């Protein structure tokens, strides 16, 4: 498990248009003009994150009840890092 002390901030609500279609969700990111097609747990991560910065450990706690898998921390951390690369969440502090 990597450095859980990382704190993330999701893009402002106004920057993301989220449309669930089926097992996949499409997200339009206004700032980049990019469309992302995502699967769970990405929509659930975004739903857990409020407007304030949130520690990765708190995000994992929020989602642990939804996903009954062994390595939930590693999965969520990997998705958070991918989302940071895309610009739909931001690393506030490492």
């Amino acid at each position, binding site marked *: 498990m990597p450095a859980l002390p990382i704190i993330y901030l999701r893009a402002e609500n106004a920057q993301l*248009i989220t449309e669930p*279609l089926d*097992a996949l969700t499409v997200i*339009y990111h206004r700032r980049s003009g990019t*469309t992302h*097609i995502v699967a769970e747990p990405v929509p659930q991560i975004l739903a857990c994150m409020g407007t304030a910065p949130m520690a990765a450990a708190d995000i994992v706690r929020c989602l642990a009840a939804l996903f009954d898998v062994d390595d939930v921390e590693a999965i969520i951390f990997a998705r958070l890092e991918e989302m940071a690369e895309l610009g739909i969440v931001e690393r506030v502090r490492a």
Partner: protein
Amino acid sequence: MHEFRVQVGPARFRIGSVWEGPIRALAELYRDYPTPTITDYTVRLESVSFLRRYIRPSVAINGDFMLPDAAPLPLAFALLAGEMAMNVQMALGWRRHLLLHASAVEKDGKALIMTGESGSGKSTLSAMLGHMGWRFMGDEFVLLDLVTGEAMPFPRLISLKNEAIDEMQTQVAADRFGPLMRGTPKGDIRHLVPPRDAVQSMGVPARPALLLFPSFGFDAAVRPVAPSEVFARLTQASTNYVALGESGFRALTGFVKAVPARAIDYRNGDEALMLVNQLWDALT
């Protein structure tokens, strides 16, 4: 420079050429269409060089919007060059609608939209249906209104290829066809003038009601297509989705959530028509 102007759906074109022949041929085939005074796009069918205007004449496809690697065509294929150049203007320049590379026909105010790779049969199917009680809306582009989601017709000349030429020649009067162009880069091509009602009603939109992904050459089958797959495939079938930004996203997600989609396989026209009619009755 010889010139011809034509309006197809909402788009208005001015086509200029150093040769009179292609302009006369286009004017003849587009004889049922309105002639605009102001145009959106200029298309130029020019010779690749001064000498090639006369010796082995070769048509360079130019216009307001151009594909840098578009190969010139022999003068015998000038009609094809003109159609390709008009398509390029739409594909690269049009911003008023979300543009889908698809064919469409209408019945009772509702549109059947068909999309797929070249050779899937979407153009032939729309031509056949357009001569069997449906209103032909277009065989190349469907224009989705960015606010209402309605499909606007773009009923340019129907571009029949290879076997589809014989198929339609048995159903439509000879004076509705352009010249047969053999051995073009896309195979044999013959243009068909859309039925008159399609041209007269080209300002009348229709509500999308069914989306089909036809595939020619397989045993008859129907498969549902998940909305997320439809979304991904239509972003690839749209030439201006990225350019439209949020407007395109909203129009496409609205379309995907509202319109049922099926993939159909078929081995011949009769089989395809049977599947289309069954699905239309069941889903719309």
